[in-house]
């Protein structure tokens, strides 16, 4: 048993070394910890005998929910799609670490790119009026004496579009989005929360890096 774990350990270390060369923001040691965490999560999911090479949609989303406090279904689905770069419906170890690099320690530029990808629902490199409407819909709570609260959302979409659409083509290009967010950082997550809160990040890092170092 100990022999296997020793082999595993060595394999993990080699893997970590490789990945840490390709992925920003993490040291080799940290990558090791993330791999271990990944393995724990994979082991937790109901694999029902299949050979698994990553986190499936269900497990990933529940992880986002429980560990990172992301609860909005519209967003978590998109976050999964963004993590899952090769579109194979599972988040592989490498995808996991690459995603977390932005998630936990991304620079503003990386985060802008990430958020834009999340918000660009149909992947046409633009956020359209309809996409915004879809993402913001239902966020206003209906007041007893008011008509459709989504009327308010429509107004809001127009206001946002007016603010962000620098090239006046009726949709947000990446450049539009980038310029706006650099102007006002608060608009990074303008259409939905897709990044963890700083407190969650702290908690996760403490849990994954420190506690495991101590082991």
């Amino acid at each position, binding site marked *: 048993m100990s022999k296997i774990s020793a082999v595993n350990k060595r394999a993990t270390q080699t893997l970590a070394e490789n990945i840490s060369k390709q992925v920003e923001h993490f040291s080799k040691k940290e990558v090791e910890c993330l791999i271990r965490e990944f393995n724990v999560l994979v082991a937790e999911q109901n694999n029902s005998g299949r050979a698994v090479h990553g986190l499936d949609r269900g497990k990933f989303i529940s992880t986002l929910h429980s560990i990172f406090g992301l609860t909005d279904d519209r967003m978590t689905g998109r976050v999964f799609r963004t993590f899952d770069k090769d579109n194979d419906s599972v988040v592989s170890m490498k995808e996991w670490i690459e995603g977390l690099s932005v998630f936990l320690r991304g620079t503003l530029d990386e985060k802008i790119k990430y958020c834009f990808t999340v918000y660009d629902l149909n992947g046409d490199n633009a956020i359209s009026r309809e996409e915004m409407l879809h993402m*913001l819909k239902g*966020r*206003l*709570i209906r*007041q007893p004496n*008011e008509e459709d*609260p989504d009327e*308010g*959302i429509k*107004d*809001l979409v127009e*206001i*946002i579009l007016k*603010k962000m659409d620098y090239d006046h083509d009726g949709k947000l290009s990446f450049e539009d989005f980038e310029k706006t967010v650099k102007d*006002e950082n*608060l*608009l990074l*997550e*303008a*259409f*939905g*929360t897709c990044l963890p809160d*700083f407190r969650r990040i702290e908690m996760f890092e403490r849990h994954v890096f420190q506690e495991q170092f101590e082991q």
Partner: protein
Amino acid sequence: MGISLTRAAQWTMVSSSTAKLASTPMNESLLKEILHFVEHFSSQHPQEAEHVFEEPLQWSTTLVPSDFKTDYDISDSDVQSHERDSEGHPLLQLSPPTVYVRSFSQLSKLLHLADDKKLAEVRACLEGKFESNLHPKQSNHQHSSITHRLNVFVLLVTVYSHPIMPPLLFQDMDKQILDKLLKDISEQVRLNPKAVKNEVEILQMFCGGGDKGLLKSLRYTSDFQFSNGYRAPLWRQVQGDICYLVIEPCDTETLYITCSTAGSFLNGGEENGYERTSDAYEDLVTLLKSRSPHFADKINQVENSANHFFSISVNQHNAKHLKYKAVASMKQLQHDGDQIVTVDTLCAMMDFNLMQESCQMAIQDTGGLKVLLNLLDTDEHKCKIGSLKILRTISHNSQIRRVIVDMKGVQSIVKILDSPVKELKALAAETIANVAKFRRARRNVRLYGGINKLVSLLDCLPNFASLTPSQEEDIEVACCGALALWSCSRSTKNKKAIRKAGGIPLLGRLLKSPLQKMLIPVVGTLQECASEESYRNDIQTLGMIKDLVRNLSSDNDELQMHCASAIFKCAEDKQTRDLVRKYKGLQPLVSLLHKADNKQLLAAATGAIWKCSISQENVTKFQEYKALEILVNLLTDQPEEVLVNVVGALGEFAQIPANKAAIREFGGIKPLVKLLTSPNQALLVNVTKAVGACATNKDNMVIIDQLDGIRLVWSLLKTPSADVQSSAAWALCACIENAEDAGETARSLIGGFQLIVKLLSSTNNEVLASICAAICKIAKDEENLAILTDFGVVPSLAKLTNTTHDRLRHHLADAIAQCCMWGSNRASFGEAGAVAPLVRNLKSKEGSVQRSTAMALYQLSRNPNNCITMHEKEVVQPLIHMMGSDDEELQEAAAGCVRSIRLLYMLLDPLQNASY
């Protein structure tokens, strides 16, 4: 051109049927424009010039038939042009004195013929009576002023409305004139009684209240109001006059104003029949702005401050628009949507011009402020950031600040200072910096524990060489914290709280920063707090003087000002003055004097120089940098804050004899003496001191005397301020001592002696001491002493002998000694009971008191009764002791006194001689 035509010509009524163009500059230029237009019309638009008017222009001309040349049929009494219209009527016809013209080309020719009378002809043409049936619509209603302009309009409108005339023609050159004129007609009805009434009511709200008001008063000439809202008499209403106002501005003479449908303008007052004497303005505010600088100044302030009354009426359209937007956004927030929507909305709001008052008020009026403050109490830090970003901007508005405090906003903001998010901390501190501009807000910050939290924000590593992003954030937080503390430090209790929270060492550490944005609030706070002695001590002992001096040479005026100001406050202390010299701060201070345009900076720099020059070593240094000459040049045309300091410095400089002459050579005496008439007490204290110091130079004194300086100084004894009284009295001493014929001058001042004697009943010891010193100098002149005696100086002085104030004892004894020189004063002092207390004063530890008192006793001892009293009070023992002093004068006085007593007793009772 547009402006002149907006109010078109200015008319003077002569009778109800004819009108004259008033001879105003505006009319002149208008005439020239029209002349230029008409003259060039036929050459530029030959075709159009040929078209025939439907109705002729007609006026009384000064031209006579002989003026016309070829192209005209000239008979004895009339002239007809060869040019005729299709029906054979001549296009120009003159039947003196009336001329009829029916086309532009003829008009142009006629003007050409008129030569140097061109302008007069145009004027006559415009003034010419017009057959009003052509435009009945415009001439029959109450805006009859228009009828007087009809010719102008007809001239152009006829052309304009002619079917063949392409309107395009006017685009190139005169479209503008036409548009303006047509617009003018339509605007005629714009000013109406209601608009005037509103404006008057608003202005009346801001009348009175001394300098704070916009105007002293504003009233109608008539309280009677017609049912149509007019107040002018009926026969003037026909001219469009609505009402007449009498306005007293704060700074100029009374204005008599006509409000008419054509606008508001000055009139000649009731007796002159309300004739127009100025240009017409579209409203009263514009008119008043042009007449009263005070009004213009105030109205700008009003417009910028809390009274949105004006700004909204001025900028109604914009405000409404923004208001709508703000309402829309605010509604979104009140929907209680989730964080994303809230943040999006807040960001959208940031796009409004939040510095604009109408927008700030819109946010407040729609209840948005409440929403913003509520957001501060949520858990969503992004909402808080968004809310604070808006709050920090709109809190530049004083009214909003008050509402924030009323809504307990300070409490919420202070709480955020504990947040782990640095951006939030910085924003909260920045908002506090803006809000804490008034007392109640500052108090709130303290009560909710804000001072301690703000002080803890200052705790950042001053490792300024290379910074991690996180350290940079810390510095940003510290900057904002310093800004907030700066605002808060205006309250004394907050100063104490900052100190108690350990803020001073932290400020001292930040003072080493190279960043200006950090240094300005830090030094600002320090100089604000330096009014407290504890701070001054700390600033010195914690070595901050060095950093303050270093930043005197910064390239930022504001920073330099705060540094100089801090040094100004701290340099009361001798060690601080020495430190400023040690760290070479004197030269930069002098070089700041060259920035004469920045008065605040100048005031701070001169203040620092003043206090530093209390140390003579510093004066010597200052001389190397030629400070004296610059200072003397600053004696004229400076605000009082600067003058007080400049004069204070000169007073210190003049303690060195060579400088007294230098001040004269640079021409400083005259402005100094002139300042003796200032009403500013702080300035007077310094001026009298400086004049007194200069007066000890004989040549200076000659000038002071010529400028009537002694009288000026003397009359300052009448000021109620004790500081000025004593300072003036000291100056008087110097003046009298050094002036030629001082005695004569003193006598010529009516009531001067009474004043001096009266001041001996002052309760202020410093005043008493200075007056005694002055009496001592005045009484050197025997005749003056006689007068003083008549005014009862002896009992007044005697009453003071019981004092324990050493400085007073010293000068009092001098005065008594001097006053003994006249008549029976020695006896009078004895009778008034002055001797016994003086003997007691002899026991004072102060050398100067001993000496003066001994001399006074010596004088008094020439009266036998006094000797008896002295002897009874056991004066001999101390006197004998004093005879052994090193001071020869004291020796002599003591010995003389003892001798007097001995002689007396020898005479009285030879038997007792043995005891001496």
